[in-house]
Every structure is written in C-alpha cells, then in structure tokens.
C-alpha cells in the first residue's frame, strides 16, 4: 500500500495562489492566444504614398544597398518589436525654413551709424561692404537612413550650412554685383555650397531651392544707395531720350533726302517731257516751215507781236532809224512795281521783215 505523502509546507502555502492562477488561466487563455496573434501581426505596416520606409532588425538596417533598404508605398510585412522596427519617412514632402540670422531682426532694427554684430545680423561682401540678407530654404529628405539615424537635426544643420554658404558666397562678390545682376549667381553659389555642406554632414537632405527674401544695404545707407539708383535711372533716361532723338532725326533725314531725290526725279521727268513736247512741236512747225517758210514765219511773227502789243502797258512808235543808227527794236521792261527782281531782258534779234525775205 502506498502512502500518500503529506503536502509540503510550500505547496500548502502556495495552494491559494495556484488556485487563483488556475482560475485566471481557465478564464483568459483564449484571450491570451488572441493577444499573442495580434502581437505577431503588429509588425505589418502601411506605407503611405508620400512615404518610404526602412526596417531595422535587432537595430540593424535590413538590406545592404540603398535600393534594398528602401520600401516604397504599400503594405510592409515586418516582425513585431523588438525584433523589427519600421521607420517611415516623408521623402516627397518639401519643407520650408526661413533663415534670417544674417538680416536685421524686428526686435533690433538697425538705425544709426553703426551695427552691433551680436544684435544685428549682416554679412560682408567681397569689397567689405555690409548687406543684410534673408533667405527661405526649401528642402526634402533624400536619404532616409542618413536622415533618420546619422544626420544632425534638419533645421539646425540647414540654418548653419545656408548661413555659411551665404557668408562665403557674399564674401567673394562686390556689393554692386550682389545688389544688381549678381543675385542669381549668389543664389546658385550659395545653394551649391550649402548642399556640399549638407552632404558632408550626412544630413540626408536635398536642398530643393534657396529663395532670396531680402537682400539690401543697411538702413543708414538706404538714401545713399537710392541716390545711386536715381542717378542710374537718370542716366538711363538721358540715354533713352538720346536714342529717341536718334530714332527721330535719322528717319527724318532719310525722308528729307528721299523727298529731294523724288522731287528731282519728278522735275527731271517734267523737264524731259517739256523738252520732248516742245521739240515735237518744233519738228511739226519745221515740217510746215520747210514747205512754206515765208508764210509760216510771217504768221509767227505777227502772232508774237500782236500778243506782245496786247499785253504791253504802252506802245511807243518811233520813226525808222537811219542806216547808221540802231536797227534793232529794243524791248524795254518797266520796273516791277511789286519790287521783284526780273532777269535782265536779253536782246531780241530783229524780226526780219517778211517783205524783205526772198
């Protein structure tokens, strides 16, 4: 016969606890199973369209190359913590950061004839002039692993790298170049340098753009800079006025020269036509004259004299001169009452008396 051993003191003391645990187990074991299942599925993660994700397994990045480390949008099956940890990063979103450490702050506007470098931000240009500059940096995450695990804080590194790039780029350009046509170059150089710095710091950030919000000389010198601007505008106005004058005077000269040439051509054509007309008339007359010279001559002479007699103010008749005296008729032209000058009258050849003609 076997004799049951008496229960030990420990078992006797633990019996109520065992009963409680046993009861709890009976009531909750299915719930525990459900919790275990939920825990096992807790690593499944949804990656949104603007995100990419990297997975850490026991803290180490899964995948050797950047291509295999990155998981795009969709469902990502990972193991539950602490085995796997999914880090989601918004890589398409463009963040913006205003950087105003090199400009006047509203709390410390710069008036007066000097600037306290601790209170008022400014940069020196290459020709040791003072300018205030403020920019807005737009950036996004390019390398999620560097950005999430190794890079410095985004805002901090961006601010100092952009400031350094701006100080460096301004420090090699003259103030006039910077304030006029050099802005584009300034931004290009500052962006390049800032990106180099961000890459060297393993920030994982890509600078999308740098935008100049303000770039101006100190307030104390604003009037002097404005005066240069006015002088420049004045000079441009003078130049443009001169160009307008040139654009007026040259075409006008062309027009006047062309008009003179056209008038000369017209006069030439008219003179040619007149000459041809008169010559044609003369030839016609000559044809008639060659048939009957005396009659034609007589008629022409009479017509001419009659016309002249009809026109003249007065006619005086004088007896014929002796042989020794002048045999010419002289046509005396009375002075023009209007005071106009008339060409001296050429001597008119004496008409030959038709009766004296053979």
């Amino acid at each position, binding site marked *: 016969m076997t004799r049951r051993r008496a229960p030990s003191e420990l078992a006797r003391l633990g019996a109520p606890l065992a009963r409680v645990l046993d009861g709890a187990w009976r009531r909750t074991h299915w719930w525990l199973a459900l919790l275990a299942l939920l825990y096992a599925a807790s690593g499944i993660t949804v990656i949104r369209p603007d995100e990419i994700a990297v997975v850490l397994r026991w803290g180490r990045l899964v995948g050797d190359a950047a291509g295999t480390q990155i998981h795009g949008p969709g469902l990502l099956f990972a193991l539950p913590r602490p085995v796997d940890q999914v880090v989601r990063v918004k890589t398409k979103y463009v963040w913006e950061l205003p950087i105003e450490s090199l400009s006047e702050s509203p709390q410390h506007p710069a008036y007066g004839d000097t600037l306290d470098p601790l209170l008022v931000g400014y*940069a020196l240009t290459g020709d040791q002039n003072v300018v205030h500059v403020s920019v807005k940096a737009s950036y996004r995450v390019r390398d999620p692993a560097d950005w999430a695990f190794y890079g410095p804080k985004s805002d901090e590194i961006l601010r100092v790298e952009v400031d350094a790039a701006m100080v*460096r780029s301004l*420090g090699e350009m003259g103030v006039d170049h910077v304030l006029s046509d050099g802005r584009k170059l300034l931004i290009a150089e500052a962006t390049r340098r800032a990106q180099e710095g961000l890459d060297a710091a393993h920030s994982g950030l890509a600078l999308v753009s740098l935008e100049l919000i303000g770039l101006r000389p100190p307030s104390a010198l604003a009037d002097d800079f404005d*005066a240069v601007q006015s002088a420049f505008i004045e000079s441009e106005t003078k130049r443009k006025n001169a160009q307008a004058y040139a654009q007026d005077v040259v075409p006008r000269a062309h027009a006047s020269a062309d008009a003179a040439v056209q008038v000369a051509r017209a006069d030439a054509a008219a003179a040619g036509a007149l*000459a041809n007309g008169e010559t044609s008339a*003369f030839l016609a007359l000559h044809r008639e004259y060659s048939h009957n010279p005396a009659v034609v001559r007589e008629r022409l002479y009479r017509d001419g004299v009659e016309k002249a007699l009809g026109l003249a103010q007065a006619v005086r008749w004088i007896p014929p*001169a002796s042989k020794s005296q002048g045999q010419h008729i002289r046509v005396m032209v009375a002075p023009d009452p209007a005071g106009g000058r008339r060409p001296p009258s050429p001597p008119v050849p004496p008409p030959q008396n038709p009766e004296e003609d053979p």
Partner: protein
Amino acid sequence: MADEVTAQRWLRAITGSAALLAIAFSATALVVHEGQAVLVTRFGRPVRADSAPGLHWKLPWPIDQAIWLDLRRRVYEGGHTEMLTRDKKNVIVRTFVVWRVGDPLAFAQSIGSEGDAEGKLDGLLTNAAIGTLGEHDLSAIVSTNPEDLQVDRIEQELLAATAPVARSSYGVEIEQIRFERIALPEENVRAVFDQMRAERRQYAAKFRAEGEREASRIRSEAELEAARIRATGAEQEARIRGQSAAEVAKVYADAHRIDPELYRFTRSLDSLDKLVTDQTTLILRTDAEPFSLLQTRETR
C-alpha cells in the same frame, strides 16, 4: 478529459516558459540601433562599447549596466569671437562644428554627457580660430579677388588644429568646421559706413557722367548719320538734275540742229511772250509790222 488536462498543462508550461524567457531576454539582451552605441559597465566600471548595430548581450543587472549613446552628428555653434588678422584688422568670427561621438568609450570616460562636450569644443575652437586667423589677412576670407581668398584652406587648418585633439582627448570626431558669420566690431562698422557712403556718391556721379556722355555720343552719331544721309540725298538729287539737264539740252540741241535759224526765231518769240507783261512799254519802229501796214509802199 485527461487529454484536455494534458493540453492545458502544456499550454501553461509554454506560456510560463515564454514569460520567463522574455524576462531573461530583457535582462541580458542589448538591441543597438543604427546611429547608437551602447556602453557596458560592470559594477560601474566601463568594460566595453558596442557601436555596431544589432543584438548584443550583457550580464543581468546589477552586474552589468548599459548606457546608450547617440552617434548622430550634431551641430555646435561657437560664440562670436573677436580676433586680429595678420594685417591687424579686427574681425568678429563665428564658426560651427559638425561633430559626432567617434570613440564611445573615450567619450564616456572623458566627457560623460553631450553638454560637457560642447564646452570642450568651444575652448578648442576659439583657440584654433585665433591661432589660424592670425596667420591670414582679412582678404583671405572676404575679397573680390579669387586669388586672395583662402577660406577652404583656413577651414582645413581649423579642422587640422582641432580634430586630432578632440579625437584623442574626448573621443569626439569633428567632421566639419565652417565660418557661419564674419562681421566687424561695432566701432569699425562706422568707418565702413563712411567708406560705403563715399563710394555711393562716387558711383552716382559716375552714372550721371556716363549717362551724359552716352546721350551726347548717341545724339552726335545720329546727327552725323542724318547729315550723311542728307548729303547722299543731295548728291543723288544733283546727279538726277544734272543728268536731266543734259538730256533736255540734248533734246533741244537736236531740235536746234535741224534748223538753227527757225529755232532761234521761235525761241525769241517765246521769250518775247514771257517777257512782255502789263507793265511793259514797247517801243517799235514805225516801219515795223504791223504799223508798216499804215504806210504806203512809196513811203517805205
């Protein structure tokens, strides 16, 4: 019934073991993430640092304890420091440093926390900046002449002056030092303003003079061009008129050649017609036509 009891026992055993394993795991496992290092101390004495990401082990508390360190790069901005350049110009410089914990064990032993690290870096940086800038002119950091500029070299010199000390003494790796600010002391800014003002006046005068000169040049060139155009026109006009006169003369000469006497006669009549006006007094001989008609043949 007996099967159910056995299954229940197994389930209990598995659950219990899992709970025990979880407790043991959490007491001994160290999960080192990317960008982290863990320093293991045994009874307070640092024994090793694990900086490779992954699973590491330690003895349970209270024997071993783990201290996590962040290996991410950090930015430290120095203070504004006034210094003298080689050409005896006062300049205020502010630099920033990008640094990280390079040797976790050395870092933990010599510094302990991040705040202290920045204090040490500040001292290193100020000394290096004063020493390095004292060997360069101001034109090495701001100049419009690219040959004078030596900013890259100065930054490399600053790095060379600080990085080895930071590495060996504090376990800190300095990766980048750059000028964040270059400014002038307040009293020097006044002189710079005066100089800028004088420059502006000079520029204003220059612009005005240039505008004047340019406008005058454009005007005189235009006038010259206009005169040239007019002269060309006049020349062309004279040529046309001359040519026309020659042609007309030739036409009349041809007519004249046919019968010079008749030609002269008709031209004289034409002239008479043109010359006699209502102001003219004609004096004619009585034996001239047509008065001669009144005379007898005998008297003639």
